[in-house]
């Protein structure tokens, strides 16, 4: 039809457009050209006819796929999964945690023929995934961060998450040894257990090599508040804090601000080294590529959640390749790298625990007595509501 000339023209335009602006999502443009003639119905037919060959896997993100943060980390994992023969990926970004995500899941199942869904945002789980899982018992839903409970949750729901605080602990060691002022900063979204655990692990890591180090915490109050995040970074730099790290959805602004202020920074979620080429020390990254690749192999091998072939609750740290460290930046000396790597090896070999008593919180109360040691699976760690000694900040308010 008359689509051909139009398409070849548009490809050239795309290249030019991309040079002029980076506003468009880059990765999928090329793919878009070839499939642009498709309609929803054709896609449905395709899925029905070719569904036998390719396993269709849907990924849903709450924000943009290029946020240098949480969503990008999952999109990288999805891209790794897409490389596996026999897997076809469909993706949708910027899907809010309302019934909009139910419609997206339904559409992926009904129109694209998705048999596997990875709705990645925490807030998608209850009630949205749980409702759709009841309605589509043959579709498998994998969710990041929730805790699967076989008594109440449908058997076609699985949950996975990583002990990324191991990477934060190592990042803390790097920060603690590199800081010149002994003052570190942690910009966090909300005082929830996952976040507190990262703050505490980072602090414990820093103080294990530098007992004088303190960590100033600022809670911004929400997952994506770039203005507040940049204000917090600036105020930390003003207080002579010289390493900042964070737990927010997109660390982009924090890394850029830290670089501009000439202080060090330590990343989170993905590799942010390109944003701060001078000051980036290291970062706690997710390794969803390895997790998703493993899932893909299991699924292609015919295993399912329903028959128990795939565990409903999947957790892991460094050793199971759920998380990893960013490559060390130029400011990290070889000695520091060696120290950090040594501890990392110990964690992988399970020779040490981060939460080894005695650990006091920052009000002086003993939270973990000296005869106790929590390994990463300990339920107490998932309910953490305190900040460790050395943290300057409060959980409430």
């Amino acid at each position: 039809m008359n689509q051909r000339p139009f398409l070849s023209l548009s490809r050239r335009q795309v290249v030019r457009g991309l040079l002029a602006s980076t506003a468009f999502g880059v990765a999928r443009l090329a793919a878009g050209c070839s499939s642009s003639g498709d309609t929803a119905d054709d896609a449905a037919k395709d899925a029905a006819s070719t569904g036998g060959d390719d396993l269709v896997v849907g990924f849903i993100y709450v924000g943009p796929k290029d946020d240098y943060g949480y969503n990008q980390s999952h999109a990288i994992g999805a891209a790794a999964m897409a490389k596996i023969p026999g897997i076809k990926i469909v993706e949708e970004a910027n899907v809010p945690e309302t019934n909009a995500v139910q419609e997206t899941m339904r559409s992926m199942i009904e129109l694209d023929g998705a048999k596997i869904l990875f709705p990645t945002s925490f807030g998608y789980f209850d009630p949205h995934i749980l409702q759709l899982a009841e309605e589509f018992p043959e579709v498998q839903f994998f969710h990041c961060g929730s805790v699967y409970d076989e008594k109440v949750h449908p058997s076609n729901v699985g949950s996975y998450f990583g002990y990324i605080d191991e990477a934060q602990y190592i990042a803390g060691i790097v920060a603690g040894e590199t800081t010149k002022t002994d003052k570190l900063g942690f910009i966090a979204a909300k005082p929830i257990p996952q976040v507190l655990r990262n703050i505490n692990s980072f602090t414990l890591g820093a103080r294990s090599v530098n007992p004088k180090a303190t960590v100033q915490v600022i809670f911004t109050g929400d997952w994506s508040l770039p203005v507040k995040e940049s204000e917090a970074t600036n105020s930390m730099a003003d207080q002579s804090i010289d390493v900042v790290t964070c737990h927010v959805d997109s660390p982009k602004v924090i890394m850029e601000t830290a670089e501009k202020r000439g202080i060090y920074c330590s990343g989170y979620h993905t590799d942010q080294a390109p944003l701060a080429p001078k000051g980036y020390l290291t970062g706690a990254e997710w390794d969803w590529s390895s997790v998703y690749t493993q899932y893909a192999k299991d699924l292609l091998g015919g295993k399912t959640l329903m028959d128990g072939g795939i565990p409903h609750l999947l957790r892991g740290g460094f050793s199971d390749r759920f998380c990893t460290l960013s490559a060390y930046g130029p400011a990290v000396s070889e000695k520091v790298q060696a120290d950090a790597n040594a501890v990392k090896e110990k964690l992988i070999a399970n020779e040490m625990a981060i939460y080894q008593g005695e650990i006091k919180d920052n009000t002086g109360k003993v939270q973990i007595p000296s005869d106790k040691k929590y390994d990463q699976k300990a339920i107490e760690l998932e309910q953490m509501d305190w900040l460790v000694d050395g943290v300057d900040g409060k959980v409430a308010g």
Partner: protein
Amino acid sequence: MMQMQSWRKTLEFICIPLGAILAALFAFGIFCAFAGGNPFGVYYSIYRAAFGSWSAFQNTLIRASPLMLSALCTILPARLGLVIIGNEGAIVLGGLGAVAVGLAIQGGAPIIVQLGMALGGMAVGGLWIALVGILRHYRAVNETISSLLMNYIAIALLNQLVEGPMRDPSSLNKPSSYPIADVNMLGNLPGMRVHYGLLFGIIACILAYILIQRTTFGFAARMAGGNLRAAKIAGLPVGKLTIAICFLGGACAGLAGMVEVAAVHGRANISLNSNYGYGGVLVAFVARQNPLAAILVSIMLGGILASAGILQRSHGLPDATALVFQGLVFLSILYSDSLYGRFDFFKERAIATSEV
């Protein structure tokens, strides 16, 4: 002759928005070509995804329903000449109020609990926007700025309450209030997967239209909006009118919050803050502050939102594409406002009258 004139006027009201939408589609087609999509395939996909089948249309309606109630929060005060954009805050607090009431009386019969939640949500949302009216009337605080800023206060209040006093301790990583029992949930309209918010929205829009066009209260409000001094001289209680109409607008948005809680989330948490408020402002302006038009505009916006997924998945367009489309449609409709009365074809035939 009168017949003839009103016919042309009606045609103008239909043709100009339609023309605006066509212009926006054309501009969007150019954008898609630049971004690597085939414009005609994209048009067809938007149609299929938004209106192409009963299932797709339900998707559109699901997205449209909160927008109708939310839009009324801007539309009603607009009749009094107030530009209020505090919808988001009223929705968030309405949801919070509904949960508070729902949990307080959860032992009662479901219908009582639901009614209580609706009234609670409406009361809280109404009072919140009434506060804007009070500030406006007694302290001459600009209502647009104050209502916008109050959105942030409302969201902060929601966070504070669900992370503090109202928190369910078992909601570890997403702080939320205690859940509403399943029996007290609103559920969906029979035979559809669309919740009752759609019905409430349509009813509220029709009631708002009757209130404004067919009652003395509405007449008084329109008069005060037209000329405040004249209204005061005529002895109208402008202060009471301002506060009352703000309350009604806020109550509609509060009801939207209640529906989100009672039909979707089942509890109050930060998901209540999902930009239905700002979507409602958009709907109100495109509908030219007409409650009936707001129903249609909501469905149109719902359709655009519903097509966002297909644009990403079938055409590989960036996720912001639907936003670009929405922006183009709304810009061109707002611009088309300035075209009324510009085309001779739609003008009343004054010459004809003089000839007779």
